[in-house]
């Protein structure tokens, strides 16, 4: 049997999904290990092998592909725990990243403090050199000033260097020469050049993206190197891929070089999964709610597609690469409930993480978390959590809640319910940001709830928002990891066009696109053998515009007439008008080669016949204590209906149905829950 494996490292758990050649899906979890995520990954793989009934080396020797989503870059950026980073930059221009082109967010908030720069001014070091926009040299790279800068790098014990010179998009020679000098003088220091990160004109976007790459690069690179070594040691000989912020994936060496491209790697798997489920008939309008131990990610699928943006900020830093539009909240099962400065109950954003974890994990945690409240309320089963692999300590959870209750001056039950209500409200607010604030009414969409913790909160959140339908996949706890197996392998190449004319001649254009496509195919062939589909696109604009539109050229002859016509049509569609008499300028030509993976076989979900409840559990709902029926998720028959209030649970996730909810087991592999009208 041959396997493909998806690995999603969250703040609390590492999820590992394996799919065999016949489409059987296996899920295993392990505690995440923030000090070195690869430890948790290896433990997850061991658990997966056990679940399948193999040894680790038997599993890895028959695995053809591993796809990995990592939050190493994201965490380093958010927590400001990246490398000690410096920047070498053109003399006279050391404040490009701090100036932010004169723009300040929040136009009417004049009392907004200015954030500290990622690379402080004393480490933005001027080097004497200067290029012209055509790549010509105004001032040659000055060896003395470069040496002085390198001396400072050494004295300051810098770990990483971003090399950001003006007009390097036109000619990378000065950046590359400086990089070579730094590497020679300071082996072991991570060096990255702006021309290699984002070879495009506009220095703020390029420098900022490069500074982030330098900041997270060493951390990501160390991690991926260690992970690969561990996998090789354990017997795995095939490629490891990392899912990138835009939802496609790249081999490990490329992900380490362009670490900034992994800044939203973690949540991208969830979006990929939502798209795959949408294609399987879940619906065209989805709001994804991926709630794990530490955070909740929310994204919007509209008309069956996810939205991509190019101006994303993570931790206040501009990253000008394509990325999925995902909102992340610091609210999850591990979020700590506490007495806020205003004297009221607050939940998060601090999380108990994987260690010590919630109080009920029995690892020494004493502060009550959302998971502790869910246990005290009877929503979780102490003996069946993670399929019984981790016995929860109900008494510890109740102790932690009682301590907080005493501080609040209310009883423990009211405190536990308050924690539940508060985290639901925070998540609902997050969904509002993702939908309502963008002018999208969430009520027409299905709430796709996944991640280990979402099933308990989805019904309450949907009620708050007036949403009528929820879907919880059987694979909820590992859906992001599963989604990573649904993405395509993609290699993209772009080239800015330098031409005296608005557009090169037809023969040049044909050669340009053929050449790019050939390069993309060659690159992809290094790590993928199979059917390849190529796509072409061009960034075009009218004469004096400065923003280009990326126009898809699939099915378009890449000559002057073809490009112009495609651009006029796209401009009309986007902006209501076109200017047929105006010259159309080609700025960047693009080609992408996509490796089509064999579709994973589909096994209809659900048991052949309906199953009775496996027991009952005493739970505290808003209406008081009640004995709820408990159903086993994986025993439900195809099409079987369960009416709330009820609990449906599997080894890795628990779904709480509130009164009036009706759940139906869909053969696509998810629980389809209809909420009562006006609920």
């Amino acid at each position: 049997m041959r396997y493909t494996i998806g690995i999603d490292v969250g703040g609390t758990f590492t999820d590992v999904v394996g799919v065999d050649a016949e489409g059987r899906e296996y899920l295993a979890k392990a505690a995440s290990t923030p000090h070195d995520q690869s430890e948790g990954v290896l433990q997850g793989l061991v658990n997966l092998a056990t679940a399948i009934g193999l040894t680790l080396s038997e599993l890895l020797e028959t695995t053809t592909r591993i796809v990995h989503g990592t939050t190493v870059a994201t965490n380093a950026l958010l927590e400001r725990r990246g490398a000690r980073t410096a920047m070498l930059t053109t003399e006279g221009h050391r404040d490009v990243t701090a100036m932010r082109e004169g723009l300040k967010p929040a136009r009417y908030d004049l009392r907004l403090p200015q954030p500290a720069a990622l690379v402080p001014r004393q480490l933005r070091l001027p080097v004497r050199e200067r290029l012209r926009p055509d790549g010509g040299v105004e001032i040659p790279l000055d060896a003395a000033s470069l040496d002085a800068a390198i001396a400072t790098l050494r004295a300051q014990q810098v770990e990483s260097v971003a090399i950001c010179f003006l007009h390097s998009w036109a000619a990378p020679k000065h950046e590359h020469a400086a990089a070579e000098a730094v590497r020679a003088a300071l082996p072991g220091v991570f060096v990255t050049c702006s021309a290699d990160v984002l070879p495009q004109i506009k220095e703020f976007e390029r420098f900022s993206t490069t500074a982030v790459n330098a900041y997270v690069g060493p951390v990501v690179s160390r991690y991926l190197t260690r992970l690969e070594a561990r996998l090789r040691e354990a017997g795995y000989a095939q490629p490891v891929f990392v899912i990138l912020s835009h939802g496609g994936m790249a081999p490990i060496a490329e992900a380490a070089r362009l670490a900034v491209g992994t800044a939203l790697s973690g949540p991208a798997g969830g979006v990929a999964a939502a798209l795959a489920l949408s294609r399987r008939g879940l619906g065209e309008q989805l709001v994804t709610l991926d709630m794990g131990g530490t955070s909740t990610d929310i994204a919007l699928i509209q008309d069956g597609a996810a939205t991509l943006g190019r101006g994303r900020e993570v931790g206040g830093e501009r990253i000008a690469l394509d990325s999925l539009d995902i909102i992340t909240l610091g609210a999850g099962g591990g979020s700590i409930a506490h007495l806020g400065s205003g004297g009221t109950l607050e939940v998060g954003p601090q999380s108990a993480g994987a260690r010590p974890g919630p109080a009920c994990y029995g690892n020494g945690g004493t502060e009550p978390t959302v998971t502790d409240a869910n246990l005290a309320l009877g929503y979780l089963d102490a003996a069946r959590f993670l399929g019984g692999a981790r016995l929860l300590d109900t008494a510890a959870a109740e102790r932690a809640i009682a301590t907080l209750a005493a501080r609040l001056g209310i009883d423990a039950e009211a405190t536990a319910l308050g924690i539940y209500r508060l985290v639901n409200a925070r998540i609902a607010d997050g969904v509002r940001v993702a939908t309502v604030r963008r002018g999208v009414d969430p009520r027409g969409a299905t709430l796709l709830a996944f991640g280990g913790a979402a099933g308990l909160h989805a019904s309450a959140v949907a009620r708050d928002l007036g949403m009528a339908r929820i879907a919880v996949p059987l694979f909820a706890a590992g859906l992001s990891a599963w989604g990573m197996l649904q993405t395509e392998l993609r290699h993209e190449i772009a080239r800015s066009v330098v031409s005296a004319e608005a557009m090169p001649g037809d023969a040049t254009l044909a050669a340009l696109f053929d050449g790019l496509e050939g390069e993309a195919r060659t690159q992809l062939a290094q790590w993928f053998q199979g059917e390849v589909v190529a796509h072409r696109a061009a960034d075009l604009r009218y004469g004096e515009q400065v923003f280009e539109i990326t126009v898809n050229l699939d099915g378009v002859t890449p000559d002057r007439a073809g490009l112009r016509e495609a651009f006029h049509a796209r401009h009309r569609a986007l902006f209501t008008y076109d200017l047929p008499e105006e010259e159309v300028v080609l700025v960047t030509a693009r080609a992408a080669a996509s490796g089509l993976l064999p579709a994973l076989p589909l096994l209809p979900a659900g048991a052949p016949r309906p199953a009775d409840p496996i027991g009952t559990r005493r739970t505290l709902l808003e209406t008081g204590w009640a004995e709820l029926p408990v159903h086993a998720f994986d025993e439900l028959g195809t099409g079987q209906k369960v009416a709330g209030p009820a609990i449906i649970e599997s080894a890795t996730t628990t779904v709480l149905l509130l009164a009036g909810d009706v759940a139906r087991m869909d053969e696509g592999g998810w629980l389809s829950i209809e909420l009562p009208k006006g609920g």
Partner: protein
Amino acid sequence: MDPVTLAVLSARFTAIVEEMGEGLLRTAYSQILNSSRDFSIAVTDGACRLVAQADHIPVHVGAMPFAAKAVVEAFGSDMKPGDVFLLNDPYHGGSHLPDLTIVLPVFDPLPLADSDPRAMPSDHPQRVRFFSVVRAHQSDIGGNTHGGYNPGASEIWQEGLRIPPIRLGENFEMRPDLVSMLALNTRINRDFRGDLAAMLGAAKLGANRLSALLEQHGGPRLMAAVDAILDLAHAHTKRIVEGWPDGKWRGEAFLDDDGHGQENIAIRATCTKQGGTLTVDLSESDDQVLGIVNSSYPNMFSAVCMAFAYLLDPEVAKNEGAFRALRVIAREGSIVWAREGAAVTLCTSHCSNEIVEAIIRAMQNCCPERAMGGWGRRFRIAITGKDARRPDRKFVWHLFHARPGAGGHAKGDGWSAAGEWHSAGGLKFGSVEMAEARFPLHFRKHEFLGGTAGAGQYRGGHGAELELVVESDGPARGNTAGDGAFHGSAGIAGGQDSAPHRYVLRQADGGERVLRTKEVGVEIQPGEVLHIRSAGGGGWGDPAKRDPELVARDQAEGLA
């Protein structure tokens, strides 16, 4: 109306104006729009009440409804779907001549039988429910000098082409003969046409989205939602204002000069706060002057709205309801409300900034934690000449680099090089690389400049230094238009004023010529260098209370 629908619709209006703004930004031709975003977008209802405005340039926040009103006054019920209206005249709904405004009426899809105060009646069987309004600053608007600002003007006819509300076209198309006439009166024909097309495109985008909303919800229901949205904003503002102490305070600010020899022109604000209302009375300001620093009425009204908005919580929705708690009093014939015919081109920056400064100086006594140190003044220069790389046309380049610093405030130091009070971090200076690729300019130095900020417990933001080599083919000419070479940015609540701007032309013969803020036709020889040191922001609070760690940080950064 249920709160979810209301929240969705409120956000929908904001999303519409933002989409329109994004469209204009991405399609416009001139640098001033596509790089520096000097434009504003609004939606008003049929009664010309502001419903939503995109967060672009704060100084336009209260001005846009005047454009819709001027169109209604000029055309009354003579409107039909697809009509395109245009204006720029500050005495007919505009702010100043370089700002062209396109107004598109949006009709209810159904004929209305009953009278509805939220709809504009028309001769057409349908009624006007909304106006989609797009205002954009043109690179050139004719007149005596290039670049839209004529610092030598002493009456409006010297400032450029005046356009009262006109019907520019029908069926969402512009009349080509009218466009040709307008374009012929400007110096950069191609940019003008491209920008006008982009403005109409953005306005149409808004009209399409608003029509779809009307189809979806029906006119009466949608307009009831608009009422509720405006009322909510009023309630929000009122709650905040009620939290301030009642009282009466005065503040004043001074313009450097009017360009014709009159110096230290005063703007005086008397602010009276009582209950949920703030009254701002500017009638004691100096009389109107000869030069271009006079304000039109809509611009003055908007500047007061802007100052008020800065004192509120940033989350308050910027619509008609939010400004119901504000009363504005002024005197016609004064610097802030000039009589028809006076020169006013500089008013969106000056005297707008001084109106804000006078109000904040008054209100520092009422709510010092909300008041902020002064943001820098605008000192622009527009350069025209020839580029050897593109011999077929002349260029006009507007300086947006070397922004002044922002004011310090109760929560921290001001932002460095973030701009002026009237734009508040909303004007982008644009890419140096892009500027060098498109214009014959070489940016030798562009960095923060220490020693420019006003001291305070929280200092102002740093100004910036720019060394710009002009590499035109033959001599170029520059016009300046601005203020702040004498007066720095205001210190507030015990903070100190910043140093003023200093702009110098380093000439080929070794001489140095200090530029004044209102100069016409400065000749610049190829290879000469503009050396600019912009002002920092004003400080907030007593400098003696400054945290020593912050002092040390400034020293480590080389910006003490």
